[in-house]
């Protein structure tokens, strides 16, 4: 397993071994699952309450399916650790946070200074993703 380099959670790290989505839906005692780009994250929705860790794999960072998987899980109320793993790049970290990822396990460790800048770079955002708790620009323009 690749080490978690950045984590934005206060609870204890989850180190349960992750199983595939098909293994997870067939066995009832697993608490960690690994979602590959071609997996349908919606298959996990009936059993979100027993999950402590979802690893979303990025074999290649230019395959963006994992972004949708992350948002779908968060939109459905998943509150456990959502970990991006694999070919992660500095410049996408912020956007991954916005999609609900709160742990990052890059295959090759990233420069921590560059990563810190990237996580904090965007003070404002245009969209409401409904999963990162950030107020979009339009909401700031029109306070309720």
């Amino acid at each position, binding site marked *: 397993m690749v080490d978690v380099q950045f984590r934005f959670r206060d609870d204890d790290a989850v180190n349960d071994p992750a199983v595939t989505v098909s293994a997870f839906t067939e066995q009832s005692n697993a608490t960690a699952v690994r979602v590959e780009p071609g997996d349908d994250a919606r298959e996990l929705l009936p059993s979100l309450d027993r999950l402590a860790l979802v690893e979303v794999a990025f074999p290649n960072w*230019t395959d963006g399916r994992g972004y949708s998987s992350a948002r779908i899980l968060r939109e459905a109320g998943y509150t456990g650790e959502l970990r991006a793993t694999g070919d992660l790049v500095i410049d996408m970290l912020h*956007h991954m946070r916005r999609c609900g990822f709160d742990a990052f396990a890059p295959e090759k460790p990233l420069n921590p200074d560059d990563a810190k800048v990237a996580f904090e770079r965007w003070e*404002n955002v245009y969209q409401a993703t409904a999963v990162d708790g950030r107020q979009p620009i339009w909401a700031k323009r029109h306070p309720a």
Partner: protein
Amino acid sequence: MYKYDDYDQQMVDTRVEEFRDQVRRRLAGELTEDQFKPLRLQNGLYLQLHAYMLRVAIPYGTLNSTQMAALGDIADKYDRGYGHFTTRTNIQYNWIKLDDTPDALADLAKVEMHAIQTSGNCIRNISSDQYAGAAADEVADPRPYAELLRQWSSFHPEFLVLPRKFKIAVIASEIDRAAMRLHDIGIRLVRSDAGELGAEFHVGGGMGRTPFIAKKLRDFVPIDQMITFAEACVRVYNRYGRRDNKYKARIKILVHELGLEAYAREVDAEFAHLLTQPIEPPLAELKRIQGFFTDPPFAQETGGEVDPDDRDDPDFRLWLDRNTYPHKQPGYAIANVSLKPIGGIPGDATSDQIRLMADLAREYSFDELRVTHAQNIVFPHVKKRDLYALWQRLDAADLSTPNLDTVGDIIACPGLDYCALANARSIPVAQKISERFGSAEKQAEIGELKLKISGCINACGHHHAGHIGILGVDKKGKENYQLLLGGSEGADTSLGQITGPGFDEDGVVDATEKAIEVYLANKQGEERFLDTYRRIGMAPFKEAIYG
């Protein structure tokens, strides 16, 4: 015109800083070219045959004179004194140095411009009708909706690495001047019988090696759900679009392979779910944006017409009849500047020409200009009484070619002269055709004829949608050109058919001439080339070309 507030300005400024940092890491060797490429592409920076090319976004083709002048200055400061307006209503600079690009982007940011998402597998610049806000036939000005989509799609966290690029157009009239049905998503604003405004969604159009006309996905999405519906459309594409083959990765292939109904079912389910999420900006935001797009203060005296004495100038009369279009406001006209001088490079303008057009917009068109997908420039609001003065200034700068929508008004991609993807040159073919048919007499005889040239099957020159289309291919190491007839991009969108075996450069110009001769010999009444072709079919053309 839209004006940035502090938030918008901060977003583009932040992007400049981010890009500056990426270039620094690239030059320091922290990023390999392979790693850097997808990042620079999201900033519109390509590595072409000879140099870097920077593509600057012109959102929905609208810009003010300050912005236009800045585009001219950038051409001088960072390029070789000219720019190339593109079929996506953007501008490209072909001779950019990598270490200059952060400064060029910073200069752009000062005039509320950027190169965000002008390339890469993300949602690209939103395009629209170049006559928006000026044409009489629109149900609403489409630009506020395009601006709403621009903000939604800029740095959209889920949609930055889609299977492939994604192009959206928004129009608001029956007549389609933006090739809406050749976009990944085409939106037409419509009014219901009850008078409510909504969005008609079309999906899966596009050119490239497998051209498709977009299919209608929804007749009417309520306007306060438009962003959410677009989000559903793109999410389904992001999840299910093919990623195994870049030539089959556009949404058109997904819609084709799944079938429209299956795709629509997925979108409906996703849309129903996303409506439960707080995604849609409030109508107050749309209203705020609409406040920037109110009519300019038109002069109220009506009946202002072109002075009959001015019409006596035959060159002006040609231009007036060919390059102007009716305005919704009495006494005003829409004036088109053709960037297709005879023998010129389609879409190119020098920095001096760009600055002149900026000045003229300030003097004659309420500070506004538009870029068209046919690579021309529009002054949207000109007093008819001012048209002669405007024309004289354009004429002195070689910007008065009276050939809008005629055979000389060629759309062409940069081709093998600049582009690393091209198989054949486009520009010399365009120049030869323009020289052969460009005279005023020929053009008057031939009338409306949309001719489009692409230097490879990626179809940036829209050859599928040309009444006459020319496609450059590589045939055993030699440039070869296929001829297509019968394409169109308007409300009557159709895809051109290949005539038969290809030609060399001169051969395709000759074949074009033969096709035009067949048209002229068979033309009935006021028929355009396209009408005659549709009536008599391919056979007589084939016979004349190959017989």
